């Protein structure tokens, strides 16, 4: 009996010691939706952070399903005070989140505590997290789409410029000449486009609209004035490529990537987040010489759609965060921003200026080849209907898929899209 008591006493003392240590250490509950090649790199960053902050702060991270499931979960958990301490968030989703009151403001004091400021960010990126002059998230990166290309095939057909980029990136005629050149050389599908996935094609189409200074939303109206025409122009270009057999039809996301990496399509328009896929394949000796550049200028001037991964702090209903915990969360965000050079290996362009201005970043390939894109970025319109996996996406997708695969006329699609978007409000 005495022995058992002794063990119990020992256990209690041990438990006490552990809980004392826990008092000094803050655990930050973290949610993200990064499950691809960039997820692996994020896990590396988290474990580096935990190592450097041993005994002070631990990040307890969970990766959840991207898109609607993630945002529904955040919405419902914040409402009952069970949201994490911090999470990744798409800048495009911030207007909706703010209208729902589920994000905490990042106050001027917070920015100061993190040692970050507006000067550290590109104006478009800063603007993307700002609603009514208040910031609701800390941008971590921007992730535009880019044009991936197969150097071997292009070189063999004399379609590379002297500095090793595809020919004809500066005009519609030029780019189409490159596509046709590949077609003539016996390539079945010169460009791998995600034509079966309208939500994905939104990025390309919105970029082409922006190249004509087109806007999706002016005031509260969708596609007002000649914006509808600009959308139609963009759709016509892409539908034309399908009709001429220059790009893949009914191709979903994994298939598009597979067509490129298997060498069947020498060109691919896709997000920078596929860079890790290429790097990893290349390291295993399974990929040709490849490169990535800013998407071609089809209309008047360069412009590329981008979104931004940010860090946000949920406004947990009825559950105030302790000052210690808050400080820990800010330390995590600040550390991540300042150590985001490694995040660039995931293809993304870090949002924190001092990192992108560093010599190390400037020498990183392929990021350096498309770093120019930072000056030409356009973000989603600021609307509660916008954002990845939002209502605008569904409407667009429904009409993009038939249009880009030759089942519907672009003019008809634009008319329907205009009607339906305005009907959403």
């Amino acid at each position, binding site marked *: 009996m005495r022995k058992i008591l002794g063990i119990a006493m020992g256990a209690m003392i041990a438990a006490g010691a552990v809980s004392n240590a826990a008092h000094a250490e803050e655990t930050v509950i973290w949610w993200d939706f990064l499950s691809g090649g960039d997820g692996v790199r994020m896990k590396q960053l988290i474990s580096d952070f935990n190592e450097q902050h041993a005994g002070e702060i631990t990040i307890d991270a969970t990766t959840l399903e991207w898109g609607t499931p993630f945002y529904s979960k955040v*919405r419902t958990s914040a409402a009952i005070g069970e949201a994490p301490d911090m999470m990744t968030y798409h800048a495009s989703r911030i207007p909706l989140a703010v209208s729902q009151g589920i994000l905490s403001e990042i106050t001027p004091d917070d920015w100061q505590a993190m040692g970050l400021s507006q000067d550290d960010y590109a104006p478009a990126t800063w603007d993307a997290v700002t609603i009514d002059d208040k910031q609701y998230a800390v941008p971590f990166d921007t992730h535009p789409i880019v044009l991936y290309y197969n150097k071997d095939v292009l070189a063999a057909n004399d379609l590379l410029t002297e500095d090793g980029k595809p020919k004809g990136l500066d005009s519609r005629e030029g780019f189409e000449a490159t596509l046709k050149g590949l077609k003539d050389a016996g390539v079945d599908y010169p460009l791998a486009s995600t034509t079966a996935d309208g939500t994905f094609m939104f990025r390309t189409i919105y970029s082409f609209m922006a190249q004509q200074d087109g806007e999706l939303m002016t005031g509260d109206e969708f596609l007002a004035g000649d914006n509808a025409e600009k959308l139609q122009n963009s759709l016509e270009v892409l539908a034309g490529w399908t009709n001429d057999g220059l790009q893949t039809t*009914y191709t979903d996301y994994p*298939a598009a990537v597979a067509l490129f990496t298997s060498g069947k399509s020498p060109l691919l328009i896709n997000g920078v987040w596929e860079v890790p896929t290429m790097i990893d394949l290349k390291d295993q000796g399974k990929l040709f010489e490849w490169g990535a550049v800013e998407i071609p200028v089809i209309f008047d001037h360069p412009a590329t759609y981008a979104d931004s991964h940010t860090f946000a702090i949920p406004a947990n209903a009825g559950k105030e965060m302790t000052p210690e915990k808050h400080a820990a969360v800010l330390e995590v965000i600040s550390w991540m921003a300042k150590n985001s050079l490694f995040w660039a290996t995931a293809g993304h362009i870090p949002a924190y200026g001092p990192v992108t201005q560093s010599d190390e970043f400037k020498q990183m390939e392929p990021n350096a080849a498309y770093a120019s894109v930072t000056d030409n970025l356009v973000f989603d319109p600021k609307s509660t209907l916008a954002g990845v996996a939002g*209502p605008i996406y569904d409407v667009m*997708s*429904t009409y993009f898929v038939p249009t880009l695969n030759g089942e519907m006329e672009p003019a008809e699609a634009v008319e329907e899209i205009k009607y339906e978007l305005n009907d959403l409000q």
Partner: protein
Amino acid sequence: MLRNKSNEALVALLLVAPFVAIYGLIFIYPTIKLFIVSFQDAPIIGNGPFVGFENYTRLWGDRRFNTAFWNTAYFVALTVIPGTLVAFAIALGINRLKGRLQALVLALFFLPYILPVSVVYLIWDWTLNFQFGIAMHLFDLLGLERVSIFKNTTWFMPAVAFVTIWWTCGFSILLFLAGLRAIPAEIYEAAALDNSSVWTTFRKLTWPLMWPITALVLMIQLILQLKIFDQVYLFSIGGRPNDNLVLVYYVFQRAFQYDQGGRAGAAAVVLFLIVIIVSVLNFQLTRLSKGRG
């Protein structure tokens, strides 16, 4: 012997209380709440101002609701009776087998039923993928043009209906088999002595005797298919979601993507009423035709 009536009632109450409590908490209360929310301009969480019947009247002008309504009706037409007939036919076939072979074949037909919907989706996506699907190589072999099944409104609902029947008919087969085994062998012996043909035996004996089971299967299928969602949602990803809407998908969109709890609530109430009306009608109809048979 004297029985203590009040004591008995107390015991009965005590025994059913846990169930009633849970039933009230997770069914009755949310249902009442749903009706209340459907009259409010509410977000997905919490209440909003009362707006009367506005959420309901808006449904009629909403062409997405219209799409959802007709797609659901179309899907029910494609699955309920065809699915029941397929299951009945397979059950008749299996019933003719004996012993281990019968168990094996039954297991093979039942196997898809245990798969989660995401696995079903992946299997059929791999099969029918436009670029890399196995079925597309068959199309090529036969010299047919490839069809992008799930991105095409003509093919979408029939394809999802086909997948659904493939996935769920195992359970109906089990019910039919149980029914077939309950028919006494003597009846068939008597029919055989009377020189009844296979077709006559089926029409005059098997079919009427199996009618209660058939009615049950029809009923289960009907209620299940009116609530179709998961397959449609998964196969729509990235494709043409607004053309493929079904009622539950519409509710999901309104609630979780548009943050319009009130309008989602109204649509859910309409679906709820449709399910009740259709099942009562179906029940009465099957009862009537049973009386006649």
